[in-house]
């Protein structure tokens, strides 16, 4: 009972998470000594930057209790658009601005359809994502874009270092710090959470809920664009399948983090994405084939949400009751199925 209460408190969960990270790191370090080398750690940092930005965007959507399945489509379309702008000879800033604008427009369309017109979120974002991945082929019919990439300086986003750490990680840390401040220390953040908790009550409190839902989708798409930007910087070209692997880690990061930390927040997503990226990179370092990566992430996500679900906690309670009397708690939970 004591340990359970310890786990449910915020600090306890934080400690549990740090412990988990240390165990995973120690496990990989013993299985594969290269895990702790500079090259491997900076690889983790780079991948975490891209995954982390996409997950951060998704966090806003999950906080208003919606889903966004258009991540892959938005990523593909914005990758090709930014690639086309760079190839046309415009400076990098213009390309980024164009990408962000496209992201905001797409997010705005999904957000408007869902918040104002009342469309169901899952299927709407699937439809939007599908149209976007079709639009990604408009520029080149699906061929890779690489012209001007080197000259534009986009690869610096990947290679440059500041205080010995890749700029992309600084970028990530800054994004999370700002998001944390906004979501947990300002009235905007409180309004986001109120919208997610009970949109009706939020509306009666004078909060414009549809605005926050639309805003969440726009932020999600914009952060997806930034994540894709880092991926383009790493690979040095734009292809239509860029960002296809962003969605699973993002979902896993948000929901695993929420399961561990006991609620969706900027910090919980950070925790989740750190864990997921470590696991992904660790396994790939150990020579696990690429096609296992989605499965590994999915499996971890599933195990995470199962282990931290309310029902599982009831079972733990039931096990404790077993010492005294028969496991009524377990049966009660089964009975409600």
């Amino acid at each position, binding site marked *: 009972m004591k340990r359970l209460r310890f786990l449910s408190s915020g600090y306890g969960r934080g400690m549990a998470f740090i412990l988990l990270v240390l165990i995973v790191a120690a496990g990989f370090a013993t299985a594969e000594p290269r895990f702790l080398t500079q090259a491997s750690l900076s690889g983790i940092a780079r991948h975490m930057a891209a995954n982390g930005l996409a997950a951060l965007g998704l966090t806003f959507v999950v906080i208003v209790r919606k889903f966004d399945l258009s991540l892959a489509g938005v990523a593909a379309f914005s990758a090709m658009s930014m690639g086309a702008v760079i190839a046309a000879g415009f400076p990098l800033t213009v390309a980024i601005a164009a990408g962000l604008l496209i992201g905001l427009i797409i997010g705005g369309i999904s957000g408007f359809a869902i918040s104002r017109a009342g469309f169901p979120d899952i299927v709407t974002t699937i439809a939007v994502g599908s149209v976007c991945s079709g639009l990604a082929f408009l520029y080149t019919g699906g061929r890779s874009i690489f012209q001007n990439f080197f000259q534009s300086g986009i690869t610096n986003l990947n290679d440059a270092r500041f205080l010995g750490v890749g700029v992309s990680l600084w970028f990530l840390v800054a994004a999370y710090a700002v998001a944390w401040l906004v979501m947990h220390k300002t009235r905007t953040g409180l309004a986001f959470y*109120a919208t997610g*908790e009970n949109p009706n009550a*939020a509306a009666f409190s004078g909060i414009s809920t549809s605005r926050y839902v639309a805003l969440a989708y726009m932020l999600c798409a914009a952060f997806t664009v930034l994540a894709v930007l880092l991926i383009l910087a790493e690979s040095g070209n734009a292809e239509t399948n860029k960002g296809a692997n962003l969605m699973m880690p993002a979902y896993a990061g948000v929901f695993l983090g929420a399961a561990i930390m006991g609620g969706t927040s900027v910090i919980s997503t950070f925790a989740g994405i750190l864990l997921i990226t470590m696991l992904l990179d660790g396994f790939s370092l150990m020579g696990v084939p690429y096609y296992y990566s989605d499965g590994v992430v999915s499996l971890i996500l599933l195990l995470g949400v199962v282990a931290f679900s309310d029902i599982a906690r009831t079972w733990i309670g039931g096990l404790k009751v077993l010492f005294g009397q028969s496991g009524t708690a377990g049966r009660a939970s089964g009975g409600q199925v």
Partner: protein
Amino acid sequence: MTEPILTASGVSKRFGPVLALNDVAFHVERGEVHALLGINGAGKSTFIKILSGLIQKDTGSIRIAGQEVDFKAPEDAIHAGIATVQQHPELVSDMSGLDNIFLGRECAGRGLFGRVDRRAMEQRADALLARFSVPLDLSREVGDMSAVEREAVAILQALAADDIKVLILDEPTSTLTEIEREDLFALMNQLRSQGISIIYITHQLEEVFAIADSFSVFRGGTCIARMSVAEARSENISLAALMLGEAIGDIFPPKGAAEKLGEVVLKVEKLTRDGEFSNITFEARKGEILGIFGLVGSGCDELAKAIFGVTPAQSGRIAVNGAAISPKKPRHALDAGIFLVPGDRRTEGLALDRPALFNVPLANLRRAANGGWSLKGRQIRNDAKLLTDQVALSPPSLTTPASGFSGGNQQKIVLAKGLYTEADVYIFVEPTVGVDIGARAKIYALMRNLSEKAAVIVISSDCDEVFGVADRTIAMHKGRQAEAQAGGLFDRDGLLLAGIMGGSMQ
């Protein structure tokens, strides 16, 4: 006298450290309407859950018609002849009444793969209706039905099981209007004449005298009294005193003093929204409580939502402190200094999974951020503490999720949220639905205190509540306003008549 249909003796139930029920002795006679009374936390809902098989008793015995029973699941209770209609009956709103009544019993086999036999269903419905005639078109979708029609469907659904001997009705009247209540009572009388016993839970004490034959009072987890209504009437026993364990005075605070009457804060003129209400005109002042009585469908709920900007009015004028406003959304009304305590606090008032600390500052984020953007955490905590103390939230916790509080205390959190906005006009819609008598008195007293600093408007379909708490009353009927003649005040019956018939009594 024959043996009681249902007898419980020595029933106890413990939840962790809390002894929710302690040695309860209880019985119901054949064919009587038996009221079950008690404040929230007295143990009556735990007891009802045991009777309907939702939870299991720890000790004690329950007998039905002399047979010892032990329910492991709701099906066992139904099989033994006890059917329960929950406080908010769960029905499928896009299916017809007939389909709802026989949901789960479409076919003899009762399996997932049984064939739906519509003809047999209709025959069974005929048989059911031969016993209880209800003025109800069962082919309509439940979503299109009124509250009392839904209640009737839920009761018929409960009775559709074979050989029901005891029917439990959990606060069926809380969402009904006065007229609908009469319809429900008529149905209950029919059931009684068929020999079915009814256990009837209510917070409305006057209903006990209107419909029940006898009653039991729960207090502190045990049944402290059982007597017949005739007995209570002849000995002039106060039910409220029995429930609270002490003699209480009037639950309504004293009326406002005329010399304290302040300036006009809210002025509403010829407010109209097509199909809902028209030409509503009134003023609300500081120092008084204005009561608006209207049944469901009278337009008074819609009027409140129009003043608060949820569903804007189409014509007419609203002015706060002399400045005209036309609120298009709640934000506009809040900015003008109006706060609405909504009728449905669970869906419109609170984020139930969140504590008071989260809920209290929601309607005034500007204050929470001290006019800026970043939240002032310490200040919010202090204010929330102050306000929850002021409304006497119990337990006085800022961190317990709102869902962990009783109905009355949830309402107090909404009230604290309102106080945080420092509004000039407070509109309460159905403020005490599902609130027990102890907490009701507290909420009325808070309204009276509030009226010293702001205009307070109470809108309710409970005539006694409006009459008891307000200094001045208006009735609404079918979207129109009915006022007492010559600027005078309604008496209680006049108000009731105006709300039900539309005319003031001469």
